[in-house]
């Protein structure tokens, strides 16, 4: 890519006059700001900021779960809606005697965790089926930009990494999971190197590493700002090379259990033909990812179209315990302008590279490398409480991320080299982030919690494993940048290995939907309407008007 003008026919969207006036102030303060060291928040200041401004603490955000293994625990409303929900199938009416496919290991989900699990299980000699609801590789992994953490430099250690993770998560993380995360990290990087994934390196092979919010050492390994995409396309290529059976456009819509409550596979739905398929599996791995598309509290999201948290209701109905489902991560820097791409991710790497956050008057208000929960809260405070945000013509509000500073700090041309995706994203609309700052606001980014797992990826339901964003406990109440790409590979591989080994000895009985019947009874007892169904599979962005018109003709398939 060159820095020439965008292709002529593309629509350009430029800053309004009001925004331009604010940019003048940003430019005026830039020189001074670049010399300024903004103090880090003291622990008590951070606590107060979070409690006052973080969306997790907004009254009415959470509710108590009334059915299932986590009865009495708090849950974010939108997650609660999919968890305390009826199955899409009627257990009395459906015939599961006929087995359509048989395998040792069934992997549900075709993102980074699913692909890593499939490769690990395949390596053990297990027969593997990987099913996914869109295309293989369509996932949040593909969209991760900034990097992957691993303590592999001489001034760093797994113990230092451990401490950063615990502090970032508010000391709530489960220690054995954090131990697994930080001690597997170097070998995960080696695994990726062996698969041919390209990382940013010095000429002698030294990894170029950076800080992320809340890290005490520079341990963020990156592949420009396509880190997740590079990992995902490499894993996908390898899964195909290995000849692993991949089934696309076929989400799992219910798990199968035997009379003893062991998980024995899943029922898939072909979204294009509306056909069901019963997959009998000795062990099953849920790697269905996150839930940004639930749009908690109406926030936009950085997440993939398919990020509807499907694995949680499946696992919950089968009897799995959940953890930390009362907390969501809001990424501090989502796009606020152009509105067409609002909510899309601006990688934290931009801040690692030296771009500062400034308000309408060109003033800084937070240290950019605080943890994400703190930075997001500070931005909300600046816009909502102090009224120091910048308004867009469409009525959104945001603060500036002063991207031209990157070339000034790191040298001319570095933004383009280190963050080509970000340059391109805005260039498409005629905005040059090397010359002008960009407007941002927090956006729903990551499901901190999920299904409770142990360090081998096991759940409390026998023969059922969970890996990736669908799992909970690793990151506590707040995840650090670069620990998600790490987590999906560490626990994807661990779950794949464990599931393959277990599949040699697992003996399940004939499949039933007993767990669904039982759960439906509980829902009825709690007074829940039978109209609510999950998994959601895909979000629905059709306007009300369009839907009413269509209603008369609607054929209810997977939607």
């Amino acid at each position, binding site marked *: 890519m060159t820095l020439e003008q965008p292709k002529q026919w593309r629509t350009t969207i430029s800053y309004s006059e009001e925004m331009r006036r604010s940019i003048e102030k940003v430019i005026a303060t830039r020189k001074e700001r670049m010399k300024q060291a903004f103090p880090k928040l003291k622990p008590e200041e951070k606590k107060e900021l979070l409690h006052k401004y973080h969306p997790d603490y907004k009254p009415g955000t959470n509710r108590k779960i009334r059915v299932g293994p986590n009865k009495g625990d708090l849950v974010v409303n939108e997650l609660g809606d999919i968890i305390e929900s009826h199955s899409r199938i009627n257990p009395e009416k459906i015939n599961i005697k006929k087995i359509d496919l048989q395998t040792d290991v069934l992997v549900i989900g075709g993102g980074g965790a699913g692909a890593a699990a499939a490769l690990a299980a395949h390596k053990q000699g297990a027969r593997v089926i990987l099913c996914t609801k869109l295309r293989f590789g369509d996932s949040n992994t593909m969209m991760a930009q900034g990097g992957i953490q691993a303590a592999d430099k001489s001034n760093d250690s797994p113990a230092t990494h451990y*401490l950063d993770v615990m502090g970032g998560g508010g000391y709530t993380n489960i220690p054995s999971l954090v131990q697994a995360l930080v001690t597997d990290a170097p070998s995960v990087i080696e695994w990726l190197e062996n698969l041919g994934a390209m990382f940013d390196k010095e000429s002698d092979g030294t990894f170029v590493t950076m800080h992320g919010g809340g890290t005490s050492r520079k341990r963020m390994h990156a592949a420009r700002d396509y880190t997740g995409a590079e990992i995902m396309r490499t894993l996908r290529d390898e899964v195909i090379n290995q000849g692993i059976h991949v089934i696309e456009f076929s989400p799992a819509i219910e798990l199968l259990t035997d009379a003893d409550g062991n998980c024995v596979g899943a029922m898939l739905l072909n979204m294009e033909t509306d056909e069901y398929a019963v997959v009998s599996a000795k062990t099953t791995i849920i790697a269905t990812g996150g839930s940004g598309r639930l749009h908690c509290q109406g926030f936009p999201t950085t997440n993939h179209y398919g990020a509807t948290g499907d694995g949680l209701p499946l696992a919950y109905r089968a009897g799995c315990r959940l953890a930390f489902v009362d907390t969501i991560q809001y990424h501090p820097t989502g796009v606020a302008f152009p509105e067409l791409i609002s909510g899309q991710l601006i990688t934290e790497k931009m801040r690692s590279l030296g771009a500062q956050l400034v308000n309408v008057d060109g003033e800084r208000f937070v240290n950019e490398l605080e943890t994400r929960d703190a930075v997001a809260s500070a931005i909300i405070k600046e816009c909502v409480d102090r009224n120091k945000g910048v308004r867009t013509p469409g009525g959104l509000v945001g603060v500036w991320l002063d991207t031209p500073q990157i070339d000034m700090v790191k040298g001319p041309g570095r933004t383009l080299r280190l963050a080509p995706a970000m340059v391109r994203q805005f260039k498409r609309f005629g905005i040059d982030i090397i010359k002008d700052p960009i407007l941002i606001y927090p956006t729903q980014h990551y499901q901190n919690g999920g299904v409770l797992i142990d360090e081998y990826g096991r759940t409390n339901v026998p023969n059922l494993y969970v890996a990736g964003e669908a799992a909970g406990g690793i990151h506590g109440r707040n995840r650090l940048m670069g620990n998600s790409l790490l987590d999906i590979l560490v626990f994807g591989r661990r779950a794949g290995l464990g599931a393959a080994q277990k599949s040699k000895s697992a003996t399940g009985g004939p499949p039933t939907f007993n767990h669904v019947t039982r759960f439906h009874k509980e829902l009825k007892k709690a007074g829940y309407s039978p109209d609510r169904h999950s998994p959601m599979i895909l979000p629905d962005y059709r306007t009300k008007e369009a839907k009413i018109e269509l209603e008369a003709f609607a054929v209810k398939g997977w939607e």
Partner: protein
Amino acid sequence: MEHLGYRLLRGCGCRSGFCGACATVYRIQGDYRLRTGLACQTPVKEGMVFSMLPFHPATKARYNLKELQPNAQSLVRYYPELMRCLQCNSCSRACPQDLQVIDIMAAAMRGDVSTAADLSFDCIMCGLCATRCPAEIVQYNVAILARRLYGTHVAPRSKHLQERLKEMKSGRYDQEVAKLMKMSTEELTKLYNARQIEVEVA
């Protein structure tokens, strides 16, 4: 489209320009030229007529990287049509990432996998180049083979990573981590707040 009542299944993915699911061809009425773009990154325009490509039926070779060398023979062995390139540049014109796909293919034909890997790094594998190629090359699959060959055989290996792996194997950090695992929140908080933060050197 969703505002008109369509529910998207194929042709929709990350909605952020990273996954390549929404490759689209379109024409503006009155203009002869067939244009290409990612649906999620292309504003709707008056007179636009478009069709999304659900997928491109491409060949994808299966290979074992360890058995291959980073050269032209490896690429041509699996994608012999590469040599049919007419240098017409249709691929570059179709690329929604504005990559110079023609240069990537030229580097691949020369066996310069390093250049092919570097130039193709921002490829999102949407398939638009391959749909326009008169020589029926699948540029994005050639490119990922080049990148993986570069990553496995050409890119310099990291010494510090190997050092660390050796240390991990010898159990050097086990005790330190185990000690932290047993600590109370108060003890951890104290340590965390006293951390030395590595300074940024420009």
